[in-house]
């Protein structure tokens, strides 16, 4: 099937070339970081994780969210999702690959990364995260590819795959729960030390991931002549709505606990993010952008007429995605490290090379997604052509 990715229109190649050039720039930035050290980033003694780990955390959510299309299709036999299931699975493959790359570029001694396997540490949540993430990558690659290959050959997928499909479904939430546990079990980081961290992660994942699938599906309809089906988009946008409302509620619950209890240490990070602390207001505009995007998204998604209109739906889903990205990509990490253990504020701003590496990783993910989607769509459209010319409906 791989050959399907090797032929394409001029537009396709231009897009691939564009991604490759960003990957190249990111790679050059990484070589610089590899030579000089992580000092080329904006991270510091007090804010020792930054953009890389933030994007990693966000993308774990995007990866886990594939389950929101896979589960209804395989578990509840919801046929409408037949066409987009593969989009979900391949999105997961791209997202997990980005996650692994983000963790890798964050290491101070990347050449020693295999020490994680050499010196297995069952007491470290990082160890479990490595297991669940790599397992999830393999499962999605296996399930997505095998089902698509069967379709390519005009048969039904082999029955041995069934257990793997179900395993992938129950595996999906685990990757985000374990990632939340990286944070929520640390003493002395008040912003992270909350039991709703894992459910909040899941809710934001199950809204931002499907939102991305909706946007991509609407885009593919325009550029690739691929129609996911009105009903599928409609159901998916309802999933986005429920998950996003849950996420916003969980966030408001956090605010209640922090401010009604009056505990200073719980309030400080939230104050830093939304109004500034000790004269530091670095991320205030971003957090309010996230809040306004969230409010806009909820208005669009909750009103049926706006949710059903493709243009407004696309806008709503983009708003969900960006709002969640700001919340996790900026709020989570800087909020966790501010104030410092000394109750002081050390500002963090990513540097240009750091942003370059980040964009490079994102471009790698988009390239993987483009290639896999290209293959999937070609297989699906050739199947439709057979039906059209031979008049034989495909059994499978």
């Amino acid at each position, binding site marked *: 099937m791989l050959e399907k990715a090797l032929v394409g229109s001029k537009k396709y190649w231009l897009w691939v070339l564009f991604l490759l050039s960003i990957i190249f720039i990111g790679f050059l930035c990484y070589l610089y970081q590899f030579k000089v050290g992580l000092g080329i980033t904006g991270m510091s*003694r007090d804010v020792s994780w930054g953009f890389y780990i933030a994007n990693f955390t966000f993308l774990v959510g995007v990866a886990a969210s594939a389950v929101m299309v896979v589960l209804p299709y395989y578990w509840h036999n919801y046929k409408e999702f037949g066409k987009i299931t593969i989009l979900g699975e391949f999105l997961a493959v791209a997202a997990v690959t980005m996650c692994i790359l983000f963790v890798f570029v964050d290491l101070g001694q990347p050449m020693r990364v295999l*020490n994680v396997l050499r010196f297995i540490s069952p007491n470290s949540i990082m160890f479990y995260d490595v297991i669940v993430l790599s397992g999830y990558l393999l499962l999605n690659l296996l399930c997505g590819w095998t089902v698509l290959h069967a379709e390519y050959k005009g048969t039904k997928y082999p029955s041995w795959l069934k257990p793997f499909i179900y395993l992938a479904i129950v595996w999906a939430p685990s990757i985000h729960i374990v990632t939340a546990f990286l944070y929520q079990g640390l*003493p002395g980081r008040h912003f992270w030390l909350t039991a709703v961290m894992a459910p909040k992660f899941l809710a934001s994942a199950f809204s931002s991931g499907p939102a991305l699938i909706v946007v991509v599906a609407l885009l593919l309809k325009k550029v690739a002549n691929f129609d996911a089906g009105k009903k599928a988009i409609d159901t998916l946008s309802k999933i986005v709505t429920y998950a996003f409302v849950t996420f916003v509620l969980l966030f408001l619950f956090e605010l209640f606990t922090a401010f009604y209890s009056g505990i200073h240490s719980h309030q400080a990070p939230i104050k830093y993010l939304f109004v500034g602390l000790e004269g530091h207001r670095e991320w205030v505009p971003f957090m309010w952008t996230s809040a306004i995007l969230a409010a806009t998204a909820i208005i669009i998604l909750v009103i049926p007429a706006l949710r059903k209109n493709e243009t407004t739906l696309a806008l709503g889903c983009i708003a969900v995605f960006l709002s969640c990205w700001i919340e996790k990509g900026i709020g989570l990490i800087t909020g966790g490290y501010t104030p*410092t253990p000394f109750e002081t504020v050390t500002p963090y701003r990513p540097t240009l090379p750091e942003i370059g590496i980040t964009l490079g990783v994102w471009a790698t993910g988009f390239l993987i997604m483009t290639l896999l989607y290209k293959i999937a769509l070609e297989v699906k459209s050739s199947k439709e052509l057979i039906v059209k010319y031979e008049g034989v409906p495909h059994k499978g």
Partner: protein
Amino acid sequence: MAIKRRTFLKLTGLTLLGTAASAAVGNLLTRGEVKAREYTYPPEALTAKRWAMVIDVKKCKEGRDTCYAKCIEACHSIHNVPSIDDKKREIKWIWEDKFEHAFPEQADEHLKELFKDVPFLLLCNQCDNPPCVRVCPTRATFKNKEGIVMMDFHRCIGCRFCMAACPFGARSFNWFDPRPYVKKVNPEYPTRMKGVVEKCLFCYERLAQGKIPACVEACPEKALIFGDLEDENSEVSKILKERVSLRRKAELGTHPSVFYLID
């Protein structure tokens, strides 16, 4: 040809996977450790069940004008700690800070005023229940038999999970190659490379030679007291029975082994 390319690739893949899997399972069973011969301490070594430090902040304040923080100087020069003139990238094993930074949750106006000019020496607390050890994915940081939270600079992958886990900001990361920032290298102690975490190790290497930690030895006021917390008759145990002491963020349950005498 008897063997097709596809079959060859499949077999190669399976072999690699099998090797990796068996290595991983083997590692899990042995917990990745080859059982080494028990380390025997040289006869002159100082040993304890749980090393601890008591810092008399009043004495520290009294001597501060004349000692010029000899403890910090001694520690940092012996351990090749680079002096980097950038608050965000600095590396420190022991340093001075204000009361409200050392004990932010206790810092009301009266105490702040009372301890206004008192330097609080901060260092790794050598916690009895260390979160940094719990989170390390390679066991590069671990607690030894004497209660010291150790670091293997050669195993650390630089993920900085320990820095996120430490509630005391005791850990530093080498954002750059530290060697150009070490003024005079002490050949008796290793220098570090970029990309690894480091911190105070309670001078385990000096204890093995029968010497007390460098900071304790350097203090002319004898404001730093070092000893075995599990030994009833040690100086630290005796003094903690008599005087009022505080530990940083005791409510977090990490059980620090560094105590501050505040009376």
